[in-house]
């Protein structure tokens, strides 16, 4: 599409997300919109090509994950026992602050100065890099997208493709600024330069830091799903490996990975399998020349248990594939930073206010950044009823009288009065037929005018249903 033609919503009213959208450039809009559409199409095509009934597979995935969450009081202790049996050290962090301190202490006790980090949303969630910097530890993002963000002082706008909001020209400029070579915006050149730059970092680092896509309770295996080889490097050269793992990442047994790996990869990147699937169940075996001698697993709660005990618990099934945001019409318009938190899109609109705990009201507008089209619910590989959760959170925000949840909403008192008085309602319906004769762009309400300027309305036929219903009773 021609980005110059794209006009954004009126900035001086509405919710925070509307105001953000008004500030993003046509370039960002075009990048996010086209990448999202391509990923959504690839996901749907691949699932349909590979499985006679992909919906059956995702129903199964949803059931297994829900079962695991509902029995986390059994699976979590089992996972811990398995990890320890394999020679890993396990630490429990109730919140982000504890997790940061545990990781900082582990690194400092071993004199670590530099860590190489592979992409992890959990570490983003607890703002680990900034914290490590305060303790004099340099944390190098090694995923290409995350590295670009780090040298730019930017944050991910997508959980799988973190740099989707930047185009090659912006990336080439960042590389030039950071001394990685003269301006060159060929993706291949950019990639080779990152490879060269990172080699030395990998081999000199004191520790490798990762998240985990899954943690298997029965075998104590951490599973990492990646493409670039950066996490393999992070687990090959340094002598220490620390993994930060949300407690919702657990699955019961190795065989269940078959369900989740097949769905995760197809849903996330439209690949049938990623280049690298790593299974880590302990420190390196004796006598091996490479690999960490010490493995520490930090289990992160950070608000998850509160969600587990409440009516929104199914959001914890999420396997962070990003399919819900790729398909979301609001995300496609707004891009990830509009959601003001680590997790954007529909899953973010549910998870962010919930993880905020007592600060729920600060994010009470996010569940309203939704047209209730239902596409996210259809796309979710673990069958989370996202639209339903969003509606329930809107209700909760209203009941809590969260100011942000009412922002941009017209007062409904007048409508309520009309709707609860039948004679008034009938009169209003008749009067509204006048709207068919009025030129709508004369409307004195700016938000309505912004909407109607580019759209036509169908003919208003108020009262037709009541008439039909009355006659139906007489027949």
């Amino acid at each position, binding site marked *: 599409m021609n980005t110059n033609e794209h006009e954004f919503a009126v900035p001086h009213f509405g919710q925070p997300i509307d105001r953000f959208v008004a500030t993003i450039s046509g370039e960002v809009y075009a990048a996010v919109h086209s990448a999202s559409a391509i990923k959504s199409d690839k996901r749907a095509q691949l699932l349909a090509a*590979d499985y006679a009934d992909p919906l059956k597979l995702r129903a199964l995935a949803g059931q297994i994950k829900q079962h695991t969450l509902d*029995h986390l009081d059994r699976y979590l202790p089992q996972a*811990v026992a398995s990890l320890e049996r394999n020679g890993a050290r396990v630490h429990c962090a109730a919140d982000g602050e504890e997790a940061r301190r545990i990781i900082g202490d582990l690194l400092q006790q071993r004199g670590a100065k530099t860590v190489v980090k592979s992409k992890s949303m959990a570490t983003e969630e607890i703002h680990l890099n900034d914290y490590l910097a305060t303790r004099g530890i340099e944390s190098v993002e090694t995923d290409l997208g995350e590295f670009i963000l780090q040298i730019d002082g930017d944050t991910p706008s997508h959980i799988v493709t973190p740099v989707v909001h930047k185009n090659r020209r912006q990336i080439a400029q960042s590389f030039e600024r950071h001394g990685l070579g003269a301006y060159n915006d060929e993706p291949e050149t950019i990639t080779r330069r990152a490879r060269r730059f990172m080699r030395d970092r990998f081999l000199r680092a004191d520790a490798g830091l990762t998240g985990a896509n899954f943690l298997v309770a029965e075998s104590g295996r951490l599973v990492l799903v990646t493409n670039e080889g950066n996490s393999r490097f992070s687990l090959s050269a340094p002598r220490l490996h620390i993994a930060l793992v949300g407690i919702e990442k657990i699955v019961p047994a190795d065989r269940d990975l078959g369900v989740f790996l097949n769905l995760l990869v197809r849903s996330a990147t439209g690949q049938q399998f990623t*280049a690298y699937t790593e299974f*880590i169940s302990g420190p390196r075996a004796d006598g091996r020349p490479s690999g960490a001698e010490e493995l520490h697993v930090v289990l992160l709660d950070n608000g998850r248990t509160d969600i587990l005990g409440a009516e929104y618990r199914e959001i914890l099934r999420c396997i962070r594939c990003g399919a819900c945001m790729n398909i979301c019409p609001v995300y496609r318009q707004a891009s990830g930073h509009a959601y003001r938190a680590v997790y954007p899109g529909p899953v973010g609109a549910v998870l962010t206010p919930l993880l905020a705990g007592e600060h729920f009201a600060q994010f009470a507008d996010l569940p309203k950044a939704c047209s209730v089209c239902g596409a996210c619910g259809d796309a979710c590989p673990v069958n989370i009823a996202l639209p339903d959760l969003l509606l329930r959170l809107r209700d909760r925000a209203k009941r809590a009288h969260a100011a942000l949840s009412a922002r941009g909403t017209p007062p409904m008192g007048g409508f309520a009065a009309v709707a609860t008085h039948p004679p008034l309602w009938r009169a209003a319906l008749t009067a509204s037929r006048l709207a068919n004769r009025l030129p709508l762009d004369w409307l004195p309400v700016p938000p309505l005018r912004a909407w109607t300027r580019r759209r036509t309305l169908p003919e208003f036929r108020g009262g037709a249903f009541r008439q039909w219903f009355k006659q139906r009773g007489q027949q």
Partner: protein
Amino acid sequence: MATKEEFFATISQALSANSARAPYPPYADTDLVAKPRVAGGSAEAVFRKNFAAAGGVTVSDLGELKAELARHDTKRGVCDPALSATLGGLDIEWTTTFDRQRPDDYAVGATIASGAIAETGSLILKDRATCDRLAALAPWVHVAVVRRADIFLTLPEALTRLGDDPYVVFATGPSKTADVEGILIQGVHGPGAQIAWLVD
């Protein structure tokens, strides 16, 4: 820092309000297989097809390997000591230990794979069978020697036989990224070329 017991207790308490806990659903491993991907012949034939689709190259003898390596600049290499006699016939200067001071000296790394997965076109690299993780990772070209008898037809077969090795990698073609404008580039931090040498 929370003790494990405190941590578990919080979770038990959160779950105590949940009266309808979901049961574990019954399913067969065959339900998970992408049937069109495993159609069309032996495990080896299926592996070759899917490995190629992932960007990998399969060779069957030293001649084919030599021809494939000729497409790259492969003056020096690092290989598993068990392979050095066989690979000695190639015009490559081999060493059997990976020197971390000179990671970019090796254009090719040759290691022994523990198996392969036909359905996904993946090599199974188990750490105890790999001479050095870095030899399978840092060089631009990685050659994995895999026995035909060790090819699993489906992913569930491989997942339920991971064994007790502390580090297992399923390598599906070369390393890749699409972080820049969604354009696929092969060869990021890992190998840019992935070769599977099938042996009996």
